[in-house]
C-alpha cells in the first residue's frame, strides 16, 4: 500500500501545475475559453511538449503512461487551472486507437486533434441508445445521424464516432473536413460541436466496440473526476482564504461558526471525492472498472454540486460575478455532471449490480 505518487508522476504533476500557473492565468483563460475557437493552439503545443498527451498512452502505444494514475495526474492539473483544451477527446480517442491497434503518433504529438462522438440528443449517456447508423463496407462506408455536444469537436481534425451497423456497435473515424460541424462555446468555457452526418464518408476503426467504448468512457470518467478534484481543491482554498479576508460586522466572516462548519463539510466531501477517484484510477482497465467509474462519477457529481453552490453562497455576491474567478470554477463544477453520465445515471448503474 502506497498513496504517494511515483517520482515520475510527481514530476509531471509539478511541471504541469507550474506551467499552467505561469502561462495560463485565469484572466487569460477566460478570454480563450469563451472566444471561438475556444482553444489556444500555442498552449496546446506547449502542453504536448511537457508530456500531457504522452502520459495518456502506454509505452507499447508510443506513450509514457496510460495508467489510471497517469490520467488522474494530468487532469487534476488541468482542473486546477480550469484548462478546457481538448485533452479529454485525446484521452478517449487514444483508448479507442489502442483497442484497434492503430497508430497513435499523430495524436500523441498533438498534430492531429481527436474528438469522440458518442452522445446524441436522445441518448445523452447510454451506449445502447445510439441511433447513428453506418452503412456500406471498406472504402464505401458512410454514417448518418447526429452526434451532439461533442466536446472539442469544434477544433477536432478527426472525430471517432460510435455508430451501429446491423445492431453491431462500432467506432468509425470521420475526417472533420468531411462532416457538417457546428462548433460553439460552452457555459463553463471551452468548446463543443454538433456533428451532422448525412451519408458522410467514414472508415471503420472497431467493428464490435462495446467493450472498447466502455473502456474509453471509463477513462474519460476518471479524467473528469480527477479534473473535478483539482477544481474543488482550488475552489475550497479560495473560499477559505476569502473567509479569512472578508470582514462583516467588524470581524472576518470566517469567525462565524456556521461558515466554519460548512467549510469543514466541504473539505470532507473533497477528501471523499479524492478517495473514490483514486479507487477508480486503480481499477481502470480491470474487470470492475465500470462499477468504480460509476461510483466515482456519482460521488463527484454530488460533491461538485456542494462545493460549487456552497463556494458561491459563502462568498456572497462577489462569486456571482464574471470577474471573480470562483464563478468560473463553480460553473465547471456544476457543468461537468452532464459529461459522460450524470449523478443519477451512474447511481442507476451501481443499482444494477444489486439485481443479478
Amino acid at each position: 500500500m502506497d498513496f504517494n505518487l511515483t517520482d515520475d508522476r510527481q514530476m509531471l504533476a509539478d511541471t504541469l501545475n507550474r506551467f499552467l500557473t505561469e502561462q495560463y492565468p485565469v484572466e487569460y483563460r477566460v478570454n480563450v475559453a469563451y472566444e471561438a475557437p475556444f482553444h489556444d493552439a500555442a498552449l496546446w503545443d506547449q502542453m504536448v511538449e511537457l508530456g500531457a498527451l504522452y502520459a495518456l498512452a502506454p509505452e507499447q502505444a508510443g506513450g509514457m503512461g496510460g495508467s489510471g494514475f497517469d490520467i488522474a495526474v494530468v487532469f487534476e492539473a488541468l482542473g486546477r487551472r480550469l484548462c478546457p483544451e481538448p485533452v479529454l477527446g485525446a484521452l478517449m480517442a487514444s483508448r479507442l486507437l489502442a483497442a484497434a491497434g492503430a497508430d497513435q503518433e499523430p495524436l500523441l504529438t498533438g498534430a492531429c486533434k481527436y474528438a469522440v462522438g458518442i452522445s446524441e440528443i436522445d441518448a445523452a449517456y447510454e451506449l445502447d441508445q445510439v441511433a447513428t447508423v453506418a452503412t456500406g463496407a471498406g472504402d464505401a462506408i458512410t454514417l448518418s445521424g447526429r452526434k451532439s455536444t461533442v466536446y472539442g469537436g469544434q477544433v477536432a481534425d478527426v472525430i471517432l464516432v460510435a455508430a451501429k451497423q446491423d445492431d453491431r456497435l462500432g467506432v468509425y473515424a470521420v475526417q472533420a473536413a468531411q462532416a457538417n460541424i457546428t462548433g460553439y462555446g460552452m457555459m463553463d468555457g471551452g468548446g463543443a460541436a454538433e456533428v451532422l452526418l448525412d451519408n458522410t464518408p467514414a472508415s471503420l476503426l472497431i467493428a464490435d466496440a462495446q467493450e472498447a467504448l466502455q473502456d474509453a468512457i471509463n477513462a474519460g470518467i476518471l479524467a473528469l473526476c480527477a479534473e473535478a478534484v483539482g477544481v474543488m481543491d482550488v475552489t475550497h482554498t479560495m473560499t477559505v482564504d476569502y473567509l479569512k479576508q472578508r470582514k462583516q460586522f467588524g470581524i472576518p466572516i470566517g469567525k462565524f461558526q456556521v461558515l466554519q462548519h460548512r467549510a469543514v463539510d466541504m473539505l470532507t466531501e473533497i477528501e471523499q471525492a479524492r478517495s473514490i477517484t483514486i479507487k477508480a484510477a486503480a481499477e481502470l482497465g480491470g474487470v470492475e472498472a465500470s462499477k468504480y467509474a460509476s461510483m466515482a462519477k456519482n460521488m463527484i457529481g454530488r460533491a461538485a454540486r456542494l462545493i460549487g453552490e456552497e463556494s458561491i453562497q459563502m462568498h456572497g455576491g462577489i462569486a456571482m460575478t464574471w470577474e471573480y474567478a470562483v464563478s468560473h470554477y463553480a460553473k465547471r463544477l456544476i457543468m461537468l455532471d452532464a459529461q459522460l453520465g450524470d449523478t443519477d445515471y451512474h447511481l442507476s448503474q451501481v443499482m444494477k449490480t444489486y439485481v443479478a
Partner: protein
Amino acid sequence: MDLSYSKDDLAFRDEVRAFLSEKLPKEISNAVRSGAELTKAMTEEWHAILNARGWLATIWPKEFGGPGWSPVQKHIFEEECCRAYAPRIVPFGLNMLGPVLQKFGSKAQQDHYLPRILDGTDWWCQGYSEPGAGSDLASLKTRADRDGDHWVINGQKTWTTLGQHADWIFCLCRTDPDAKKQEGISFILVDMATPGVEVRPIRLIEGGHEVNEVFFTDVRVPIGNLVGEENKGWTIAKYLLTHERTGIAGVGFSIQALEEVKALARKTRRGGRPLIEDPLFAARIAQAEIDLEAMKITNLRMLFKAQEQGAPGPETSLLKIKGTVIHQELKDLARRALGPVAAPFPGHVSEGNLMFGPEDTAHNAARYFNNRKTSIFGGSNEIQRNIVTKTMLEL
C-alpha cells in the same frame, strides 16, 4: 380552517385572468418563458399596460393611485401573473421608493415623484450595498457632506440592479461620520444625470448584465432630495426590509419552474423513454413538488396572518429561506433534465439554425447560475436565519 378563496376573490381572479389573456403581449410572455433577459422597452411596455388598468402599483393605497387590494388579492394577482408568464414588476420605484415616500416623504416629494413612477417617467434603482457593506449594510461608507444647499456625495454603490436603465437612484449615505454605525445615515434621492455619477456594468456569472457599480465623485444634490429626517435613514432601510415581504417566497415563480421541469422531463429521452419515467428523476421532481405544495400553504398562512395582524411577522424570513431553496432546486432540475444539451453558452445555441435538445434549451444552465443570487441578495439566507434566531427562537 378554509383554504379556498371567497366568491369575491374568485371573481377577482377571473378578472385578472381575462385581463392577462387579453392584454399581455405574446412576445413579452414568450420572452419571459424562454428565460431571456427582458429589454427595457418590453418592461416599459408592460408597466404602461398595467398602469392603464390601474394595476401597476399593487401595494400602494388608493389615495396614491394604488388599487387598494387586500393581501389575498395581491397574492392572487401575483399568482396569475406568474401563471401567464408576465414579467416581474421592476420593484425599485413601485415597491420600494413608493412606500417610503408615502410614509416618510414630504407632500411635495409625494406629489412630484409618485406620478412619475406610475407613468414611467422615472426609472429608479437602489443604492444600498457597497463593496464593504453587504450583509453588514450598516457599515456603508458613501458620504453625503452638507455644502450650502447641497449634499456632496462621494463613494461607491454596488449590485445596482438595472442601474443601466435608471434615471434616478435612492441612496443610503453617511451624513454624520462621527455617529454610531446605524446612526448618521440618511436616505437621499439622486438624479443619475448629475455630473459625477458613473455607472459601470458588472457581468454576472452566466454572462448577463443586470447589475452595476455606481460611482459618486463630488456629486452635488439639492438639500431637498433628503427623504425623512437627516441621520434617520436606517429607520427607512429597516422599514423597507420588513415591508411587503409576503411575496418573498416566490411561489408563483416556483410553480412556473415546476411546470417547465415537468415539460422538459417529458420531452427529454433517457434510456429509451421519457426522463419523467426515470424513477430517480421523477423522485427529484416529486420531492420538489411536495415541498412546493407545502410552501403554497405556508405562504397563504403567513398572508392570512399578515392580513389579521396588519403586518407580516418574522416568519417571512422562513418564507425567504425555503422559498429560494425550492426555486433553486427546481432550476437545478431543469438543467439536470437537459444534461449535455443545457451546456452550450446561450449566445451560441441557435447558431446555424441548430436546435438543441427537446426544444430550444438555451437558457436553462444560465438561469440556474443566475438564480444562485436569490439566496444571497435581499438579506442572505444566513442573515435570515440570524433574524429568526433572535426574533422567533429568542436564542
